């Protein structure tokens, strides 16, 4: 931990600290805790699908004493609801937006801290209170929320079909998490736009910061829309209103069920881009660092991110092709969704351009970055299948969709998260992570991950519906049930290989080899200060003379790269 914090009490320095580095580490550990929790839930789901209603070994007795260690139909929906909600809002968002954003933005921008340090601290504690509410929903009579992390309207909004307080606590937990993310968003946008060091023009901003900036913009714009929908669901549940209730369940007329889906997916689709944009930025930066070559087409990448940020807000209808939405509107959404593949194609070309004629160093962060490029190729391209209206009518709400979004979320974003942690760990904690464990972690994860999610897509093509607890009841699914068993074991393999990562983190925290200020010879500002950096980062605000990716500069004799803060870069570097 940062040893150089000035003489504040333990509480002010480590718990209620307004220092962006301490807050980032708090986000990191909270996110990793929930990543593990969500992972265990995934294994329980896979066990149920592989061996329906059979007692779960080891932890079965403790989890389900009432039913002899086997899962009950009421608990299964709670598992996949909490798995989705925890992974999206309490695992990936804290690590990517919380830890990556909080740690890198002030350092890379050359500022002493975030624009609003107290607001930054508050955002972490809103997340903690939200997560306490979320976990409390397990202990409440009636159990946790069971209407899917998408909380579709009549099921989530009526206490007749979803009784109990678990659903309300889940919604309140999400609302608090939304407030926490909004506070973070205000901080990120203001710090990136207003507190850049002299010389650091927008053209010289590292791509990770561009990704975080667009992600924060999307969050600030679309999170309040889902917050309003969540509050309306709470009113429907507890105050007798009927915004989203219709038919016999509705106390009075006028409610519109489709309205909830529009409000949710209006936010829902930007949310998946919120999670992937920081990863795109990180991949852009890391490919450049480890190919020892400037990022190919920096401005094209930034413009493509802008186009995707705009497009992501007007394509949500492809989630609702079979929901009764008007098919003509569906066609418009289909075409808008398909055009998203053009900026994505530009991304891939720029990534490959960066690798082209580079001097590639296959370090652990680089492996994970290349892993992101590979799995996002599959994830992105399978998105086209879901965009086709006629084909989506067949595969909507099947495991093909589950396979697709796990390829983009649970694979690309997860590898992006690991790339972030392996790359920034030396700077955050001043110690190297063990490379050997890292290579094993990447290899095993890559194999198991592709096994799990590609088989999911195959199951989906066969019509296997999602969110069902037991597929053996269906005749047309009998020939593919053995794939469910295979999936269960592959998922267990994926889960166990993550132990390597957690062991690596804990081991390296205390016993990792001490890391120098710039272990990867990276060019951005953060690597010009010691690791771990002093409490207020920069004694005097650094001056910036060139872009972040000045590697392989021909006119250099000693070494092959120029730091952004290097005065001679003004003459030698081109950007």
């Amino acid at each position, binding site marked *: 931990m940062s040893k150089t914090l000035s003489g504040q009490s333990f509480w002010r320095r480590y718990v209620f600290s307004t220092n962006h580095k301490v807050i980032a580490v708090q986000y990191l550990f909270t996110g990793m805790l929930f990543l593990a929790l969500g992972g265990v839930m995934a294994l329980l789901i896979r066990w149920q699908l592989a061996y329906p209603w059979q007692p779960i070994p080891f932890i079965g007795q403790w989890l389900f004493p009432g039913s002899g260690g086997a899962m009950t139909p009421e608990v299964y929906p709670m598992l996949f609801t909490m798995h989705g909600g925890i992974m999206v809002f309490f695992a990936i968002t804290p690590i990517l937006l919380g830890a990556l954003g909080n740690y890198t933005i002030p350092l890379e921008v*050359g500022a*002493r801290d975030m624009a609003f340090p107290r607001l930054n601290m508050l955002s972490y504690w809103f997340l903690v209170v939200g997560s306490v509410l979320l976990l409390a929903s397990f202990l409440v009579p009636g159990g946790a929320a069971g209407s899917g992390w998408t909380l579709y309207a009549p099921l989530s909004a009526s206490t007749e079909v979803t009784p109990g307080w678990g659903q309300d606590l889940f919604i309140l937990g999400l609302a608090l998490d939304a407030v926490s993310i909004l506070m973070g968003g*205000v901080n990120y946008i203001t710090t990136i736009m207003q507190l850049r*060091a002299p010389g650091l023009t927008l053209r010289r901003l590292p791509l990770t910061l561009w990704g975080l900036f667009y992600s924060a913009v999307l969050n600030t714009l679309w999170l309040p829309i889902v917050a309003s929908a969540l509050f309306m669901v709470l009113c429907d549940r507890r105050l007798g209103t009927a915004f989203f209730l219709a038919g016999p369940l509705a106390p009075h*007329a006028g409610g519109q069920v489709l309205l909830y889906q529009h409000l949710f997916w209006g936010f829902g689709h930007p949310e998946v881009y919120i999670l992937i944009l920081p990863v795109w930025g990180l991949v852009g930066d890391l490919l450049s660092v480890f190919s020892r070559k400037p990022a190919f087409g920096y401005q094209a990448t930034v413009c493509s991110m802008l186009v995707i940020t705009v497009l992501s807000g007007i394509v949500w209808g492809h989630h609702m092709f079979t929901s009764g939405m008007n098919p003509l509107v569906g066609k418009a959404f289909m075409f808008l969704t398909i055009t998203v593949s053009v900026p994505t194609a530009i991304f891939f070309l720029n990534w490959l351009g960066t690798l082209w004629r580079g001097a590639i160093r296959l370090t652990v962060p680089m492996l994970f970055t290349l892993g992101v490029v590979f799995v996002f190729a599959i994830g992105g391209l399978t998105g086209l299948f879901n965009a086709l209206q006629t084909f989506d009518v067949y595969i909507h709400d099947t495991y093909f969709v589950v396979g697709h979004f796990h390829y983009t979320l649970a694979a690309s974003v997860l590898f992006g998260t690991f790339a972030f942690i392996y790359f920034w760990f030396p700077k955050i904690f001043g110690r190297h992570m063990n490379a050997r464990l890292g290579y094993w972690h990447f290899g095993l994860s890559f194999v198991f991950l592709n096994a799990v999610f590609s088989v999911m897509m195959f199951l989906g093509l066969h019509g296997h519906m999602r969110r069902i607890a037991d597929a053996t009841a269906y005749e047309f699914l009998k020939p593919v049930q053995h794939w469910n068993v295979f999936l269960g074991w592959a998922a267990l393999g994926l889960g166990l290989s993550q132990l390597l990562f957690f062991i690596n983190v804990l081991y390296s925290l205390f016993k990792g080899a001490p890391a120098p200020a710039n272990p990867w010879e990276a060019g951005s500002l953060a690597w010009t200060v010691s690791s771990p950096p002093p409490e207020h980062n920069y004694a005097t*605000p650094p001056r910036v003379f060139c872009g972040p990716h000045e590697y392989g500069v021909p006119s250099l004799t000693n070494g092959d790269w120029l730091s952004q803060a290097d005065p001679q870069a003004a003459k030698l570097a081109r950007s």
Partner: protein
Amino acid sequence: MDRMINAEVETPLIDIPTGKFGMWVFLISEIMFFTGLIGSYIVLRLGATSWPRPGTILNTPLLGLNTLILLSSSLTMALALHAIQQGRQAALRRFLLLTAGLGVAFLGIKGFDYAHMWHRGFTMSASLFGSCYYLLTGFHALHVLSGVILLLSLFFAASHGRFSAAHYGRIEYSGLYWHFIDIVWVILFAILCLV
């Protein structure tokens, strides 16, 4: 207060103080939050087959008076900022208190209006119009309440001499928030209570 974190910075694209930029970004999320609520109200209303005329249920003159109160509070907030820009501390404190008072008056009338109508059977669960009315005006009232608390904190800070002619950032940014709440009420008043 604005640039104490970094003495020197690259001139930003939108060259306004950091605090003001942060408040505007927060107001962006507030605009989208009320877009979600008011948009849902508009769409639910136009999609419903029958909708009562607000005049028959709501007490229009009282709501009109409430609008005047909130508009006046916007004036006093602007005058408060104007006063501190000229360094007049006493005037600042007076106008801040006046704005907070008008806000409390607005909430008082709102509370009385709620109690009166709830008693007359126009409750949140009675009809979709009731649900929308209480949802929208309820969230607006919460924002007015938070604005009043913010103003009171400014008043205490002002009475401790925190502000001067050169150092009044927080007054201006809180003013932005207060005027935004006023604009939301102007829109709500027109499309919810009158039309």
